[in-house]
C-alpha cells in the first residue's frame, strides 16, 4: 500500500482520502496534493456523491401537513394522566369491593361447611361406636341377655378352645380330623 511519490494512488487509497485525508500516509498525502490525475479521480468521486445527495434532496416531496408539537405532546400526556388515574381508581375500587365481598362470602361459606361437616362426622362416629359396642339392637340384646354379659378371654377359650397345631398336623397326616 505504500506508494512512492510518482506512482498513483489505488482505489483503496482514494476511498480512504474520501473519508478522511489524514488516514493516508504522509507520502500518499504529498502525492495526492501534487498529482492532478489522482486529485481528479478523488474529486470526480466526491462530485458524484455530492450530486447524488443533491438529486435525492430534489426528489423529496414537500411535507403537506403542519407539525403539531405542544398540543399533541400536552394532549397525550394529559390524556394519559387522566386515563391512567381513572383506570387506576376504577380498578382499585373493583378490587377492594370484589376482594371484601368474596372474602366475606368465602369465610362464611367456609365456616358453615366446616361446621356442618363436623356435625355429620360426629353423628356418624357415634353410630359407628354404638354398632361396635352393641352389634344387636337393644331389644335383641335383652332377649339374648348379652347386655348383661361381660365375657373375658378365659371364658371364650373355655367355650372355644384354641386348636393345638401339633395335634392338627398329625390328624391331617393320618387322614382323620376329629374335634
Amino acid at each position, binding site marked *: 500500500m505504500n506508494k512512492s511519490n510518482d506512482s498513483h494512488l489505488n*482505489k*483503496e487509497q482514494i*476511498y*480512504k482520502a*474520501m*473519508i*478522511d485525508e489524514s*488516514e493516508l500516509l504522509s507520502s500518499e498525502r504529498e502525492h495526492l496534493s501534487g498529482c492532478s490525475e489522482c486529485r481528479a479521480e478523488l474529486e470526480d*468521486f466526491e462530485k*458524484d*456523491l*455530492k*450530486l*447524488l*445527495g443533491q*438529486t*435525492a*434532496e430534489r*426528489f*423529496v*416531496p*414537500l*411535507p*403537506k*401537513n*403542519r*407539525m*403539531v*408539537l*405542544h*398540543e*399533541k*405532546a400536552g394532549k*397525550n400526556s394529559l390524556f394519559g394522566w387522566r386515563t391512567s388515574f381513572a383506570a387506576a381508581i376504577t380498578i382499585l375500587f373493583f378490587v377492594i369491593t370484589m376482594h371484601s365481598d368474596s372474602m366475606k362470602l368465602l369465610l362464611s361459606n367456609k365456616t358453615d361447611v366446616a361446621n356442618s361437616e363436623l356435625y355429620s362426622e360426629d353423628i356418624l362416629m357415634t353410630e359407628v361406636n354404638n354398632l361396635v359396642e352393641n352389634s344387636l339392637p337393644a331389644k335383641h340384646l335383652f332377649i339374648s341377655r348379652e347386655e348383661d354379659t361381660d365375657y373375658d378371654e378365659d371364658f371364650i377359650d373355655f367355650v372355644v378352645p384354641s386348636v393345638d397345631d401339633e395335634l392338627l398336623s398329625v390328624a391331617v397326616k393320618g387322614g382323620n380330623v376329629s374335634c
Partner: protein
Amino acid sequence: MHLPNQEKYPYSGQDRKSQTVILAEMAVAGNTNAFDQLADLYYNTVYKMVYYRIRSGMDAEDVTQDIFIQVLKNIKNLKDFSLFKSWLFSIAVNKVRDFQRKKRFTSFFGVFSGKDAESEQENEHEAGAESGPLESVIRQNFWKQFEAILNRLSYLEKEVFLLRFIDQLGIKEISTALKKNESTVKTHLYRALKKIRDDGSVKELLKENMP
C-alpha cells in the same frame, strides 16, 4: 403549529450551531416559542433524513413529528447543546428503525398492507399532481434505483453512508449519533464506498436522472 420553512433560516453552519445552542437553552428554560423556532430550524433536515430512509411522504411526516415530540420531552436531559444536531439525529435514526421494524412486522402479518398501499398511491398521485406526470415517473425511478444501491449495503454501512454523503454529517457527528467510535464509522464508510464505487451504480443513476 409550525409551517416548515427552510428559507426562513439561511444560516451558515457556524451561525446555525450558535443559534441552536441559544434556542435550546431557552427551550430548556421553558420558552415554548424558542422550541418552536428550534423545530422549524431542523424540520426540513429531519424530514428529508427520514424520507431518504422510508421513502413515503406521509410516513416521513408522522415519524418527523414523533422525533420532535421526543426531542421536546427529552431536551432537558441534553447536557451539551453544541451536540444538539448529533443528538437529534440519534433520535431520528432510532425512530426510523422503530418505524421500519413495525412496518416489517405489520407487513409480515398482512396487517394494514392494503391501507398502506392505498395511502402510498394517494401520496404518489399528489406528488405527481404537484410536479407533473413525467417528473413523477422520474422521481419514482430515482428512488427505486436509490433503494437498489442501498440494498447492497449492510444496515450500518447504509446508515453511515446516508449520514455522511446524503445528510452531510461529519464523522464526529455520525460517531455521536450512532454511538460508535470514529474508526468503526470510517471502516463502515470505507466498505460502503468500495461497494458503491466498484459497481458503478451511482454514475449510472446520476446519468439517468440528470436534468
